[in-house]
């Protein structure tokens, strides 16, 4: 049941879903190939994420996880392949339009705007939104998830600790009111306590109905919270299945849950 290459039981582009059939995926990545100059970083990755699902994307260093997420956000263009979101083609859309469409990202390495205040960083997350009225409420929601940010509002983002910066990066992504949240290694370099906080928040967001695509090095934790997961190796999907299936898979056990 470890469905190597998903054994063709995928839902495909069936969009006519009757009451019984599975809902079409919110995000469908089909066979994307992404290059850095002549170097191919992503070699035909396909994956999909259904509404309200939490999907983990695992893989060792250099597997192409970040490249995949950045391509979904429109920061890189795939040389071939297609990305559809909510039935619409994203492949040629500018990044700000993709955020406006409801996909936001907490990027790898946090990427905080160091000389801007925490408040400005958060407000920047809401850049493509038209409804300025809702901002106060959304800031409150972020403070509710990460109370420490409220105490740091006027502080320059670059002066926050690593964990605080990670919370700021996630808060900033949430300010876009995403329907699909892309998280790139949110627990990287954090102390165990902080890792737990971050995963608590991820679970809570899922419970609130946010669809999440999570890239993680911490495979054990990721598989615990994920509905489904994909394993990437040198730019291709080598395994996929439910979180439980993958957690029980001996290959995954050896390579990622390691002992």
């Amino acid at each position: 049941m470890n469905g190597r290459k998903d054994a063709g039981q995928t839902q495909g582009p069936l969009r006519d879903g009757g009451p019984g059939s599975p809902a079409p995926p919110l995000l469908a990545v089909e066979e994307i190939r992404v290059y850095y100059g002549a170097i191919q970083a992503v070699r035909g990755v396909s994956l999909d994420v259904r509404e309200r699902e939490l999907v983990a994307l695992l893989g060792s260093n250099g597997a192409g996880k970040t490249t995949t997420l950045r391509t979904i956000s429109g920061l890189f263009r795939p040389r071939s392949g297609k990305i559809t979101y909510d039935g619409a083609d994203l492949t040629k859309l500018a990044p700000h339009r993709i955020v406006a469409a409801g996909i936001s990202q907490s990027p790898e390495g946090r990427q905080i705007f160091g000389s801007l205040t925490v408040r400005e960083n958060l407000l920047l997350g809401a850049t493509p939104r038209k409804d300025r009225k809702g901002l106060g409420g959304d800031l409150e929601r972020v403070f509710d998830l990460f109370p420490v940010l409220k105490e740091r509002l006027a502080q320059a983002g670059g002066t926050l600790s690593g964990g605080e910066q990670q919370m700021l990066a996630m808060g900033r992504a949430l300010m876009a009111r995403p329907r699909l949240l892309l998280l790139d290694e949110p627990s990287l370099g954090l102390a165990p306590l902080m890792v737990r906080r971050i995963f608590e928040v991820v679970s809570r967001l899922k419970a609130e109905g946010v669809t999440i695509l999570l890239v993680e090095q911490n495979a054990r934790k990721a598989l615990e919270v994920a509905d489904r997961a994909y394993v990437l190796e040198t730019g291709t999907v080598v395994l996929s299945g439910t979180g439980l299936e993958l957690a029980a898979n001996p290959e995954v056990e050896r390579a990622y849950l390691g002992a």
Partner: protein
Amino acid sequence: MASVPSVRPGATASRHRGAVPALAAVALALTLLAVFLAYADASFNGYRLQIVTLVAINATIAVALTLTSGFTGVFSLGQIGFLAIGAYVGALLNLAPQWKSEMFLPGLPGWLAAFDTTGWHPQVALLFACLVGGIVAATVATLVGMPLMRLSGHYVAVATMGFLIIVHSVANNWSGVTRGARGLSQIPSYTNVWAAYGCALVAIYAAWRLRVSPYGRAMIASRENLIAARAVGVNVHRSRMIAFVVGAFLTGAAGPLLAHQIGSVAPSAYYFTTTFNVVIMVVLGGMGSISGAVLGAAIMTLAPEYLRGVEDGMDLGPLSFGALFGLSQIILAIAFILVMIFRPQGFFGDRELGLGLLRRRGPRQDGDEAEVTPTLAPGLDVGPGDGASR
């Protein structure tokens, strides 16, 4: 959510607390400036008054460059091209028709040659020229910026320098309209301290409003980390275009002030030397700081005047120096190099004069902390993130 109102009042209350002294400080500063200008206007000789006026004109240009390049990190070396456009537009509008006749400017369209503002109130004619100069410069900036603002980093610097060279050679060679290298003269001297400082204040206010708006925030974000800015949904091209066009408008508006101050416009006055002077003003003040640009402009305008005395020679103890021409330039250059070594972020970096001082006095604690904690070297040092080149 129900908790929404609980923050809002707090936030606005603290903002009000800060706003009253800030407003009072601005009013006080404006009053002092007005008193000084009235005094200068009444008692300074023509030359000194001209220097005082020049401080404001240079401040306008430096603030505009801060907006265009300091906020966005997109280095424009074409700024002075817009100044030239504004200056020529102002001159051609307000020259007396006798100087625009077929004999002097055969290439000028008839309607412009006949356009006569000599009957207007000089300040109205000047204001009109500033507005038209600004609009023409902004229009050119829109056309030029469309392709150029898509380029990254150094390419923009080179390409905008190309724009400056084009403006220069048009001014040099379109003799029927510009009289080529001889330039236009007989431009009535309409500029006074009030107009110049008025324009500078408008530029400062515009830059400040832009900086605190979502657009300004987006500009700083794209300067600091291009990948992250794009990831959060900043339309980088649009925010650079806004900075470029608004900066061009303000610079173009300063052009007529300069033309009506000096009385003539010639291509050589709007080229590399002027460009580098303005760049130094901005870098000295701190890329990204409006008050830094004003300070930089003041220093770079006043210092050469004070240093001019040095060139006459002097006695230092047993040593006696004869007249050394060019010494003031060398002293300024050395001073600039020293500033860059010891304070590469310029005097202010990204900060603004006054805001921090005001905040420290106020009862807000979070604000105080922000001032005390060392900020990551702002401005140039932070630079674009690792992903910027992609």
